[in-house]
């Protein structure tokens, strides 16, 4: 093909007023799907960053993992069906991510209550340990119930909660 033959010729398109109703409907549907995808992407990003802020790096990595392999993906104009599939996939990821985040928050809350009890009555929670990450906190500290003065404290029932730095 010569260069002149290959020159881009814009396709002739109907004026918006002349388009069949179905086409106008599809254009509106595609626009709506794109805005839904945009909102879901923002929601997913918010959930992921929230996970990270609550020291759930493993959960953040899980959320960032795409649900289906897309190695053959290439930039293109998506069909209505593809847009719908992508919207549904993103919606599923957002729901799953929020559920996992909620489960993790419940777990952190449970651990915080346990830590409160450990602090109130160390003698009832002997040798129990809670890591900072299990409380949704940063750092690698560990709360542990230990006997004061070692063996003497153990025999005398002197228990205390200590926060170790935990970091190597």
């Amino acid at each position, binding site marked *: 093909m010569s260069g002149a033959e290959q020159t881009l010729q814009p396709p002739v398109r109907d004026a918006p007023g002349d388009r069949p109703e179905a086409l106008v409907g599809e254009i509106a549907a595609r626009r709506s799907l794109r805005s839904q995808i945009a909102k879901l992407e923002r929601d997913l990003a918010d959930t992921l960053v929230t996970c990270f802020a609550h020291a759930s790096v493993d959960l953040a990595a899980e959320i*960032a993992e795409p649900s289906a392999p897309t190695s053959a993906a290439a930039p293109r104009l998506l069909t209505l069906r593809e847009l719908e599939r992508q919207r549904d996939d993103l919606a599923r990821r957002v729901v799953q991510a929020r559920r996992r985040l909620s489960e993790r928050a419940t777990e952190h809350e449970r651990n915080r209550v346990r830590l409160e009890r450990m602090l109130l009555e160390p003698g009832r929670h002997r040798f129990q340990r809670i890591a900072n990450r299990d409380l949704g906190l940063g750092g690698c500290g560990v709360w542990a119930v230990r006997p004061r003065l070692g063996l003497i404290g153990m025999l005398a029932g002197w228990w205390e909660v200590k926060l170790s730095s935990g970091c190597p």
Partner: protein
Amino acid sequence: MNPPDGQPPVDADRDDGPQLHQGWIAPEVAEEFPALALIECELPLPGDRRSPRGVRDQLAALSDRHRGATALALRREPVAGAYRIFFRHIGLEPDVTRTPIEAAVLERLLRGGFISRGLLEDALLLAVVHTSVPVWALDARSRDGRLGIRPARAGERLGRAAGAPPLAAGRLVVADQSAPLAVLFGALGPECEVRRDTATVTLFSVQVAGVPFIHVDEALWVATSTIAPH
């Protein structure tokens, strides 16, 4: 220079750098993405392609500013997030095919810093890291007329060379008047890459919905002023 609706001006005059030109967008693409724009400019490359100390220092300073938490939070930032959304709209999964800014920051995390690779590469890296807007460079000799964005047609190849890799029909490409030169947000055609004997480069950037023109202008300004300080 920047119109109130954030749309790029056509052929904007700049006092402090090369003139910006707005590329064309194929009608079927413009209908899907009304805010999509391609902005380009041309400038001569200096003979010495090594980065001066100031540029390398800038990269080092930026390396200190970008850590793991920054990389993760990027997706919540308006401009970086807009490119992620656009990637989804064109069928790319941004957690697999990284947006340019995320790819740059991820590489910084993996390598321990933004590595200097020469003046042009550093200029493009500085532009994307400073603004989150990607800028690409191609050899100005390889183009034929204004650049634009359109879907590839059946049987087309990436570039004009006989051995150029084939393109699937419908793939979105950056093209000139006669041939695709690069896949949109992807690889450049082999003969379009900047080589040792390239005297003039075309810098181009892609503006998507949610990215004000001023960011694109800034990205091109950072790149051009790094290559040829005004």
